[in-house]
């Protein structure tokens, strides 16, 4: 299997020289050859193979100097929208959206959170009202990463306020260029504006951009979130990610070393290495089928380790750690957790235990859905959403 896949990549590269093929043409052709995400079905960028083979394919393309599809600019598209469309989309939706999503011709963002619906995502108030073949959407979203670069969004909206909160939601694919979509930067702790507020005023979404059944939005959103939690913090190689950054500084700057920082660094190195192995094991387990709540445990470890490492790095740098590169408001096209300088990394890592579900919520999920412990006390679960206290 592995050999055959190698051959396919080799043949593809012979036909499409990365040095001379135009970037988008190259990426489209790679998708059409089934070498985009090998576990996707044939015709949709894949070959229906084991997901565990993907890193190898990516490596072969990287080594050949092939253009990448800017994964840092489209994490939501690749990690969340893509797998959800694959699982719940109609054939027409899959054909329309998956290729430009994978080639990064169309970047995606996630219109889930609202001022009144953060951890309690099922509390969204954004309304979608049916009007013939369209839905009319009104509401406000918040913390929307990359909305300023996005062509499409995955959107959860309330279609029946008369039902209990989890039952009245529906999932849509929203065109961010539609009239009525207003994206405003929200400056964050790092100085830049990675996320946004998004105001939706009479946005008209065709019914064929609904994903899943009316009222099934919670179920579809859960598939997205499970994918999000596995896709966050995936590291195939030893010392990739934050630990690699700190280890490099340690190696290159012997004058900064102290015994006490040494022990902390080694503990975190072990934690990061074990988390890497745990992720590899989880991916072996999930190589067929959709991720379940187990990914939440991975995300918990990833957030803790990233935060401890980035904090350690600042202390290691000492006097240098007191400085910061740049507080200018920019709206980045890319999110790179390990990019920029140590101060940025320290501040950005604080989001790791909030975005995609806070560590507290993830512990609830692990406790309830993996370990089977009793659910939290809920006052609004069975009453119509419109009657619950807001």
């Amino acid at each position: 299997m592995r050999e055959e896949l190698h051959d396919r990549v080799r043949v593809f590269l012979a036909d499409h020289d990365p040095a001379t093929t135009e970037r988008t043409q190259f990426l489209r052709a790679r998708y059409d050859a089934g070498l985009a995400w090998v576990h996707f079905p044939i015709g949709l960028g894949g070959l229906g193979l084991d997901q565990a083979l993907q890193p190898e394919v990516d490596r072969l393309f990287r080594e050949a100097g092939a253009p990448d599809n800017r994964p840092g600019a489209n994490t939501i598209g690749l990690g969340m929208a893509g797998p959800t469309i694959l699982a719940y989309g109609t054939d027409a939706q899959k054909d329309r959206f998956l290729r430009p999503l994978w080639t990064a011709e169309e970047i995606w963002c996630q219109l889930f959170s609202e001022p009144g619906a953060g951890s309690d995502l099922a509390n969204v108030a954004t309304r979608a009202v049916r009007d013939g073949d369209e839905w009319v959407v009104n509401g406000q979203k918040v913390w929307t990463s990359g909305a300023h670069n996005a062509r499409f969004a995955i959107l959860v909206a309330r279609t029946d306020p008369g039902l209990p909160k989890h039952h009245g939601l529906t999932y849509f694919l929203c065109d961010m260029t539609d009239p009525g979509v207003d994206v405003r930067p929200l400056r964050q702790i790092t100085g830049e504006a990675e996320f946004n507020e998004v105001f939706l005023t009479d946005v008209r979404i065709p019914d064929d951009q609904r994903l899943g059944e009316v009222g099934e939005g919670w179920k579809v959103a859960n598939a997205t979130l499970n994918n999000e939690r596995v896709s966050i913090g995936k590291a195939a190689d030893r010392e990739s990610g934050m630990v690699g950054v700190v280890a490099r500084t340690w190696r290159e700057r012997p004058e900064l070393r102290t015994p006490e920082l040494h022990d902390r660094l080694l503990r975190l190195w072990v934690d990061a290495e074990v988390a890497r192995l745990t992720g590899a094991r989880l991916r072996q387990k999930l190589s067929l089928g959709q991720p379940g709540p187990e990914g939440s445990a991975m995300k918990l470890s990833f957030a803790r380790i990233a935060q401890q490492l980035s904090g350690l790095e600042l202390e290691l740098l000492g006097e240098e750690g007191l400085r910061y590169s740049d507080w200018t408001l920019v709206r980045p096209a890319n999110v790179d957790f390990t990019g920029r300088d140590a101060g940025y990394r320290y501040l950005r890592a604080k989001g790791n235990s909030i975005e995609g579900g806070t560590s507290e919520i993830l512990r609830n999920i692990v406790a309830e859905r993996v370990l089977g412990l009793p659910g939290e006390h809920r006052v609004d679960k069975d009453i119509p959403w419109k009657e619950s206290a807001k």
Partner: protein
Amino acid sequence: MSDLDLLHSETEEDLRASVRALLGDHCDPVAVTRMYDGDRFAVDGLWKALTDLGLPGLLVPEERGGQGASAREAAVVLEELGRTVAPVPFLTSAVIATTVLLESDSDLLAAVAGGERTAVLLVPWSIAATDDLPRIRSDDGVLTGTVTSVAGALEADLLLVPVASGDGLAVHAVDASDAGVTPLVSLDMTRQLADVVLDGAVGTLVLDDAAHAVRRAIDAGAALLASEQVGIARWCLETTLAHVKVRKQFGRPIGGFQAIKHRLADLYTGVESATAAARYAAATLAEGDPDATIATSTAQAFNADLAVLAAEEALQLHAGIGMTWEHPVHLYLKRAKADQIALGRSGQHRARLATLIGLPG
């Protein structure tokens, strides 16, 4: 290094099932507890039953009288032995001593593999592969010296003795009946330690130039101890989960309180992580992968502390019940704490990693 299988195969699950069934019949926690009151025969028959399954020779090739299995299978056995804190010399005889004998062409290996003899490598249980090895003095094959705090010595009838030989090290075999073996009151009586005195015993040379083999054996022990620690931690997690689901206070199951849910979610995360670390250590050992040393020290640096945490959390969440002699959680705490010190503390493994991965102090 990323291609190794970190899951359990069907064959491994079958092996687990037979070991678990047998332990269910022969290793009752009440009997194990009696070992603290000096009843060493409390679980008589257990090692015999495991021997009938072929466990003493698990790591030995078929042509030398064993089962021809790999470290992956031995790891599964240790997960199960850890789950029951089984007082058997599998790790000391079938893993550590056997790893030394595998390097020699002695037919003692076949005897150990077949379960006719039980062996022990004569080193303190706290030894790390990076420590100086203890050396017994030899005068023309007549051995004198003492090694303290040896695990598995009470069960063994064959001592593999590291002996000073010129600048190097040799391993001699000595009949246990020719040595003074004094049982110690041990923190973990399910793996009771003993001081061993050799005073004129006659040794047979098993292996010359043995320093490397002995370190390898200690490392194999450390790598697979990580799986025992997984077994301990999983038992603690599962037993605590079962308890907090039924124990009620303030009118509801205590497992519904978020402070408790979150701790158990963290413990689950730790146990899953420890499992991955142990599987990788076993897989690299089984494959003879050059990453085995890093994998071993990583697994020990992580799993040793995690198993102790699991036992401490189990005790705390069982509260009063957890402090009693009747509840088996104390057996796990004592084993986990002793295992944390065994075959190198986590700090020693981190120090070794610093060299192996190029992060010097």
